């Protein structure tokens, strides 16, 4: 029972909520023709879509956390949450209530303004990337005139991918501000590590997005998806690029095996050490939201977006019809693909051990960046000369092999007995 609320008040509140919902339904019924007109307009439809997506994504994020706990339980041969509701399905609700009710501590030694601002930034910035993702292609309400269509996308802009890149880079602010404002050594180290890591992996990530832009010759995500319709998806031609994009996205989200920023054994919890209750929850919501965004971008660029594979029955109808049901089917396909990606993210987290920090940095700068530059260069030439698309598959394989052989040739142990520079200087070895 919530503190300070008795049973009578709860009953009154419940009746009030029911009446309010009923009144809203009646209003919707009365103004249904106006509503239909509004929904048929791209601008107002975008508004409704944005609000709807906000709700969907918040719910999805809450269930992502449950899924993560279930998957970790499955990997470690445990049950996972199974007490709250059937199969633990109400666990996110219970967690939410718990986080609301917990004491929100702002320690005395922090920089209070930035301390409060940081979780807001982390949360909001991870939200706004959704604006440009194509959720379901073009469709038509049954009451709209023939030939007119709406785009199931909040904002359809020409520079969508540049926008995604910009918003993605801004994610660093939340982390750095949190670490700096906390005035806590662990938080500070965590934030420095996290920011250097996010910056480093931003570069190969952006390069792989550039490969996709070169391939589809457009910065619009919906063009990238349309480009893949009726042919192989882009990852079939760019397996290495898709792999690098996936790993970079993993590192960008500060997820294991790249969760150096919150390496529990070393740094307690990293940049959010000093945060508690709802502010802490906002960092987590931000992290999971970020995962959904990056998966959505990855799916749209390399894995066919909302398209079903052509060999499946009914794929033609789902991919091309402007029927509203087909649109919902496409949305379902996109969400399913995102779900698969997130499940893979989670399984990776509970399977692989953590990287060491110098390995992490050299993976980004000495493996992904040179490989990424080669792939970009290759793709620039292939597109310019109109060479057939399967050239890029060969190029990808060659670059992967060359990179592997090169690193095997120059590899030397960095661990083990090392002699310090000063000792060598003094002739002590």
């Amino acid at each position, binding site marked *: 029972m919530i503190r300070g609320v008795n049973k009578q008040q709860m009953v009154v509140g419940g009746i009030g909520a029911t009446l309010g919902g009923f009144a809203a339904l009646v209003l919707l019924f009365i103004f249904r023709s106006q509503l239909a007109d509004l929904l048929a307009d791209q601008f107002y439809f*975008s508004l409704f879509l944005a609000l709807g997506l906000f709700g969907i994504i918040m719910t999805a994020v809450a269930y992502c956390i449950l899924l993560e706990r279930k998957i970790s339980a499955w990997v470690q041969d445990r049950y996972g949450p199974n007490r709250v509701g059937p199969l633990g399905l109400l666990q996110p609700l219970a967690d939410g209530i718990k986080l609301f*009710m917990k004491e*929100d501590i702002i320690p005395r030694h922090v920089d209070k303004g930035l301390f409060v601002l940081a979780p807001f930034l982390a949360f909001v910035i991870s939200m706004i990337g959704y604006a*440009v993702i194509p959720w379901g292609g073009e469709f038509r309400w049954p009451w709209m005139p023939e030939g007119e269509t709406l785009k199931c996308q909040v904002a359809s802009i020409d520079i969508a991918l540049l926008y995604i890149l910009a918003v993605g880079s801004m994610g660093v602010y939340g982390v750095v501000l949190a670490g700096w404002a906390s005035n806590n050594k662990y938080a500070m180290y965590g934030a420095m590590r996290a920011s250097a890591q996010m910056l480093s992996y931003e570069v190969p990530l952006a390069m792989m997005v*550039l490969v996709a832009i070169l391939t589809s010759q457009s*910065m619009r995500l919906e063009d990238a998806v349309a480009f893949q319709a009726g042919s192989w998806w882009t990852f079939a031609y760019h397996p290495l690029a898709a792999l690098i994009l996936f790993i970079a996205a993993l590192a960008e989200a500060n997820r294991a095996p790249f969760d150096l920023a919150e390496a529990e054994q070393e740094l307690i919890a990293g940049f959010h050490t000093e945060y508690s209750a709802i*502010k802490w929850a906002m960092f987590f919501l931000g992290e999971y939201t970020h995962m959904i965004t990056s998966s959505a971008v990855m799916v749209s660029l390399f894995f066919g977006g909302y398209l079903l594979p052509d060999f499946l029955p009914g794929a033609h109808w789902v991919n091309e019809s402007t029927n509203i049901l087909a649109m919902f089917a496409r949305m379902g396909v996109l969400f399913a693909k995102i779900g698969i990606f997130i499940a893979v993210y989670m399984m990776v987290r509970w399977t692989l051990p953590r990287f060491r920090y110098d390995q992490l940095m050299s993976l980004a700068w000495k493996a992904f960046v040179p490989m990424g530059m080669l792939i970009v260069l290759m793709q620039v030439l292939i597109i*310019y000369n109109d060479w057939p698309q399967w050239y890029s598959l060969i190029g990808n394989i060659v670059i992967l092999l060359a990179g592997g052989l090169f690193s095997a040739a120059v590899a030397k142990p960095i661990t083990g007995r090392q002699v310090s520079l000063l000792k060598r200087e003094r002739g002590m070895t």
Partner: protein
Amino acid sequence: MGHDLVIGILLFFVAGFLMAFAALLVGKFLRTSLPHPDKDAAYECGEPTIGSSWVQFDLRFYVVALVFLIFDIEIALFYPWAVVYKSAGIAALWDMLFFFAVLVLGFLYLWRFGYLDWVRATEGQSRKFDAKPDDDLGKAARQWA
């Protein structure tokens, strides 16, 4: 089109902010508040913390940030170019390849002189430093020793 973007972003921005703010505000009425001096202390090691953590940090982080900045600008330039270069003719291609080559040169310089190495204090990396015992770097090293 630009109109759409502004509305979409603003909407997400405002909705996100409102939700986070509402969460804080609603929580304020529900949650307990039992202040205690121990809760105000830094979560570090149980002992009272020594000193502030607003200190200088390692130069390597700045190097990473600088290199990132250069690469990010390059890529941000590449994006619009990638969409139009095919129709812009051979000059656009050569321009960008030249630009790219300069960048690669800088990258190779960083690699050669060990700015991409994270661990720099051991002999494994020492070949990268061109310090002789009698030049400035070598003297500085002796002074510190």
